[in-house]
Each structure stands twice: as C-alpha cells, then as structure tokens.
C-alpha cells in the first residue's frame, strides 16, 4: 500500500537486473577485471543488494532513514504511551500557554492542549498524507508514463501535452484552486496533492522506458511472442523503476510540505485533528507570548522533510539514477 512496499515488491522477484541475469555478465567481468576469480566466488548480488551496500555507506542517507523509522515508530505507538505520560492531543484540561516544562516538553497552546502530544499525533497526518498522495501520483504516473513511453505516437503526444498543461500552473496555486472546489479536509488534501504530482512521475518513467525499450532483451521477448503487458511488467518496468523510487521518496517530503502549507492556509486538515501546518497557523498570533508554538511544529516538518530528501539523495546515488537538478 505504501510507496516503498510497492517498490520492493516490484524489485524482489525480478532478481538480477542485468538483462535477466545472464551468466554473460559474469564472464565479461572475469575477462576485464584482474583477480576476478575472487569476485566470481562472491555471492552474487542483485542491483538492490548492490544499492543497499552503497546506501549503507552514505551517512546522510542513513541518518534520514533512521529519522524516518524513528518518526514512524513514534506515531504508530503513540496510542500506547502518549496518553499515559502526556495528554490526549485534543484534551484542553491544562493551563493556557504554559512554557515548556517536564510535564509539557513543548509547552501548551492557547486553549491548554499539550503541544508535544499534538506534534507526535501531527506526524500521523503528515506521513499518511505524504504516502497516500505519492501513491496516487505514482499510480497515475505509472499508467500515463508507460502508455506514453511504450506506445509512443499520438498517445505519447497526448499524455505529454497534458503534462505540459499541468506544469503551466504554479503548483501551490493549482492545489489551492483544487481544494477551493473540493472543499477542505484530510481526504481532499491527499487527493489534490496526488493528482498534481502525476505529470512529474510520468515524465521520469517515460524517459527511462524510452532508454530501456531499446535493449535487445526486449526485442527478444517480443520475438518470442510475449504480450505487451508481459514485456512491460517483466522486462521493462523492473529496469525502469529506479528513478521512480528516487523521485517518489523525495516527493513524499514535498507532499508533507504541501500538506503543511495547505493546512496553514486553513484549506487542509481541519481542527481538532492535530496537523503541523494548522498548529503553525494558530501560532501566528501568539509569537510574542508563546514562541514554542511556532518553533516545534515547524521543526518537526523541517526534520521529517529533510529526512526524505536525504534518503532520496542517497537512493539516487546508490541506484545510480541521473536526474536533472
């Protein structure tokens, strides 16, 4: 269901990525690399195994990964410990605008809610919107991108011109216009962000399909009478998917920022559901008496988005994906 699961799911069964894992590749290596005898005995690794080896050496990417795992664990287990040691995120039983203390690590807000538990529960909304929105973008983007990259011709022109139209809109404005019509709320936010994200995914996928499509193993599969769907799923997609993983990871960060911005403007997640963006809009009038209301939700957005960006950067290097900056 999550973007990540889909990716590993698409990757694992395909095994070696080099033209279907023919032994040819190993012979070439042995011929070219001196001392390749040892390499031949090395357990053979898939592209994904190689990528993981490289990713592990990237400290920043691992820091990002650790932070993502930390935030996800925190949110998933929040029901177990937050109400026991802190407070329900919607309970208003505490004094208004208390500064941070042991009891309330991030202080309390205007109507006496515990800011720490609201930040923890806010992560739920942010992560869910991020993952769901990007899943929608990827689902539409995969369909459109493969139609246009695989079939080309009129279909390609049609999809790409539609993408151009989407790119003509400034992103935030389009999101706001869509939400103005759909109405605010959690569901509409991830639907709107998801719909706006597909053209980038489709473009990335299209260009990688175009380069993969030229490979001989695709011709071979076609000559053996494989159907378009089979060629697409078994031969092209596994080799074209790496840029989507990289782009999807970074997009989750982007979707989280967008959700926060929309909620800040009052068009996103509605109170009393805790959302980082909405907490910041409540903090706006209280900067002088209660700066902690501004600091913590923003810090949560920054670190979480940064984690996804670093992770995406790391994946890009590990999977050796070339992208325009």
């Amino acid at each position, binding site marked *: 269901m999550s973007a990540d699961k889909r990716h590993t799911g698409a990757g694992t069964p395909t095994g070696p990525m080099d033209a279907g894992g023919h032994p040819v590749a190993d012979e070439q290596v042995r011929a070219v690399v001196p001392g390749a005898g040892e390499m031949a005995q090395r357990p053979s690794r898939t592209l994904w195994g190689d990528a993981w080896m490289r990713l592990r050496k990237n400290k920043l990417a691992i820091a990002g990964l650790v932070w993502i795992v930390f935030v996800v664990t925190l949110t998933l287990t929040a029901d177990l410990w937050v109400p026991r040691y802190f407070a329900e995120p919607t309970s208003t039983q505490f004094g208004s605008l208390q500064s941070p203390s042991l009891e309330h690590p991030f202080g309390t807000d205007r109507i006496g809610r515990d800011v720490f538990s609201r930040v923890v529960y806010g992560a739920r909304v942010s992560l869910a919107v991020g993952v769901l929105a990007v899943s929608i973008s990827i689902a539409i983007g995969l369909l459109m991108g493969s139609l246009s990259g695989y079939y080309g011709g009129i279909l390609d022109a049609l999809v790409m011109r539609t993408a151009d139209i989407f790119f003509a809109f400034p992103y*935030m404005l389009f999101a706001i*216009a869509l939400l103005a019509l759909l109405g605010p709320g959690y569901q509409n936010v991830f639907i709107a962000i998801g719909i706006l994200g597909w053209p980038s995914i489709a473009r990335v996928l299209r260009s990688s399909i175009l380069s993969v499509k030229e490979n001989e193993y695709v011709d071979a599969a076609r000559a053996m009478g494989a159907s378009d769907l089979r060629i697409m799923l078994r031969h092209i997609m596994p080799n074209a998917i790496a840029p989507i993983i990289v782009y999807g990871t970074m997009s989750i960060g982007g979707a989280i920022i967008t959700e*926060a911005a929309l909620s800040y403007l009052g068009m996103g997640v509605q109170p009393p559901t805790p959302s980082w963006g909405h907490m910041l809009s409540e903090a706006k009038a209280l900067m002088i008496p209660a700066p902690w209301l501004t600091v913590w939700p*923003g810090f949560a*957005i920054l670190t979480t988005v940064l984690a996804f960006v670093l992770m995406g950067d790391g994946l890009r290097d590990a999977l050796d994906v070339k992208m325009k900056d």
Partner: protein
Amino acid sequence: MAKYVLRRILQMIPVFLGVTLILFALRIPGLLPGDPVQLIVGERPLTPALRAEIEAKHHLNEPLHIQYGYYVSGILQGDLGSSLQKGRDVTDILLDKFPNTARLAIAAILVEIVVGLLAGIISAVKQYSFWDVLVTLSTSVLVAVPVFWLGMLLQMLFGIKMREWTGGAFSLPMSGMGDPPDLVHLILPAITLASVSTAYVARIMRSQMLEAMGQDYIRTAKAKGLSERVVIFKHALKNALIPVVTFIGIDLGMLMAGAILTETVFSWPGIGREIYLAVMTRDWPIVMGGVIVVVLIVMVVNLLVDISYAILDPRIRYGGKAE
C-alpha cells in the same frame, strides 16, 4: 528570429486552451460539488427568477462547447467577471495588486542572484573548504524548510526578539508594505520568498562551476599564466552561468505570479494574498480569474525569457535547447 518567436507563440496556444479547459471543466455541474449559479450569487438567496436571469446572462443554458467558447473569448478580451463581495471587475482588482507582487518578485530575484551566485562560486572555487561545507549543508536544509515557517521565524527573530534585545531601538517591519511603501518592509518578505530558489541557484552554480573548472580551456588559460581571478571570472564563470540564468528566468515567472504563502505570512497586498483571501471569502470569480491571470503571467514571462536566450544564443533558434 521572427520564425522562432512565432513558433514559440504557437506552442503556447494548446497549453493555454488546455488550462482554460481544465478550469472550465471544474465548473461543470455534477463534476465537482457546487452549483455554478450558486457560485455566482454567493450567499444571496436564490429564487427561480434570479436563477433564470443568471443562466441567461452567463450562457449557462447553452450547450457546453458554446459555453466554453464564451468563456475563452471573455478571457481573451480581459473579462474575468466581477467580484462577488467587492462589486468590482476581477481584472481591475488583479491589475491593482500586480505592481506589489512584481515589487516583491524583483527584490527576491535580486537576493537569489547576489546570494545564490556568490555562495555557489565560493563553494566551487574553495571546494571542500569550510565555506563549501557550510553552503552545501545550508542549501540541503533550506530546500526542506517550509517557506511560511521560515517567514514566521524571521518575523520572530528580526521583528520581535531584535526589538527586545536592542531595547526597542531596532527591529524590522513584519507586515504590509509601509505607507508610503519603502524598502525596509521588503527585506523579510524578499528573503523568505527567495530562500528555496537561492538554495537551488547556489547548488546549480556550484556544480556548473566545478564542471567548467575541469574543462581543457581552463587548463590552457592557467597554463598561459593567467591569474586565478581572470581564469575564474572571465573563463569559467561565463560558461557556467547559462543554466543558472535559465533557472532564474523560469523562477522570475513563478515569482511574478504571486507568492501565496509569503504574501499571506507578511500580509503583503499582492496577487497571491488576494487569491487566498478570495478562497476564504468564497469569492470564486477572483479565484478562477486569478488562476488564469497567474498562468498567463508565467507563460508570458517564460516566452520573454526564451526569446532573450534565442537572441543571445543562436543555437537555440535552430531547435537546440537552452541547456
């Protein structure tokens, strides 16, 4: 040259039609919640007579393709309808706000150029130095900072804390443009608006500069005994600048189109804030008209940027790309 300009303008037409088609489709009854007639009358009570009158006036009883024709020709004649709350033409309202948006956009672009280029050049020339690490780290962080939060932090630091620390002697204005508009009010919004793009400019500048410094002609220039400064600024920079300028050009179009978040945080009376306020008050003609105007601004600025490249770089005129 004329041929290139013509081709570029012709390319804009399908995109413009597509954009209007999407915005038009959003108003078709049944596709999305909301009755177009109700949208036009707003909160006023809707009688059958009023409904019939509005349907006739706005051609809502005609077939869809005819309605679309009216819609597009209205836009082309600069008719975007009139505001529900303010009783003024949407075109006039947006024209009023545009100079403020342009003012902020130009200030932000200046920040981008000065800070972004300098940071990029320094970190490339002194690769792996303290400054390079600083620039690389801060650009990665800046990309992940929500713009509106950065604005709030700057307000807190330079508007509120600064006044406390200096005993009320010094602080920067936190909202509005000043009356009459002055430069001090521009400082915080311009920095906020420029932040993310400045990070990108610095990154692109750094990588382009590093690439240029590795080229043969740079080695030749150094071998000729030219000074480091001449090599960097006359030889490397000139070639490294092209992609950076492309980015800044595109960004200018986006900034000219209004910055909803920055303008809202700083109560800057521009197009972006006007559209935001219109969404909040359900003033749909301003929202929809505003979107069209913004898209047109982006398209026109991009066109002008492309044309100026074609003048500067003849390769582009003959089908090449800017990069």
